[in-house]
């Protein structure tokens, strides 16, 4: 999956690496600012004392 993605990216090895890093940063940003806050709000409710 990842190797196939690496092969499909344009440019040389350095350019591909930069693009992968950028892609990873975009994915992490989406996770940190959209997905995780939404997941956190959905996590099941425990009415007892919790950590």
């Amino acid at each position, binding site marked *: 999956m990842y190797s196939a993605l690496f092969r499909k990216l344009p440019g040389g090895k350095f350019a591909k690496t930069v693009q992968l890093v950028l892609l990873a940063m975009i994915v992490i940003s989406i996770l940190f600012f959209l997905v995780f806050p939404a997941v956190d709000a959905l996590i099941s409710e425990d009415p*007892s*004392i919790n950590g």
Partner: protein
Amino acid sequence: MGKRVAPLKTTRLSILGEILITAGMVVMLYAVWQIFINDPLVSNQQEQTSKTYVQGTSSSVDKFEPISKKLKQGHVFGKIYIPRFGKSYERLIGQGTFQKITLNKIGPGHYLSSQWPGEEGNFAVAAHRTSHGAPFNKIDTLTAGDLVFVETNDNWFTYKYLQTAIVDPSEIDVISKVPKRLNGAHPGGKYMTLTSCHPKWTNRQRIIVWLELIGQQPASEGKPTALEYLQR
């Protein structure tokens, strides 16, 4: 010239492996987000929100809800000051201990079954030890001589540290009117109980801190002298 290595063949198994590794990384990233991003962010947010609440009835600022049996979950009725956690430490206290409504957003939450501040019995408050601002992260540092202050619309209450205990989650008597396991607890006493999870990052046990009311003064007299260092 070196031999060129042929690219690995993509199989269903290799795709499944990569998906599982990716899922593992997402879970680890969630932990990183929770500890290093969300926690400090929420903690700061809770402290800043707390500073906007004041006693009184002016409608131009956030104010505490009057204490009443009809108070809905998540409504803020007071503020807690714990100098042992830091000189600027103050957090709002919301009604109820449901996570989504109170503990994850406001911070400390008042057990619905327990008494109100200053009342005969036990005023019990829960908060996260880790995550969601971790208001009681340093609960284990409370020790003899420490004071905890509670501010409501009408009064200031001063509680003095009595004892710490580690109990099982099922031991709910620790927040009863006469707290179980508190040495010397007697009917008619005015106690406060702080509860959180123990050890940190787990909810295997509970850490319990008991305090006793040693002072109460009307809001009109201003804050207790021990809190004079606060800028407001």
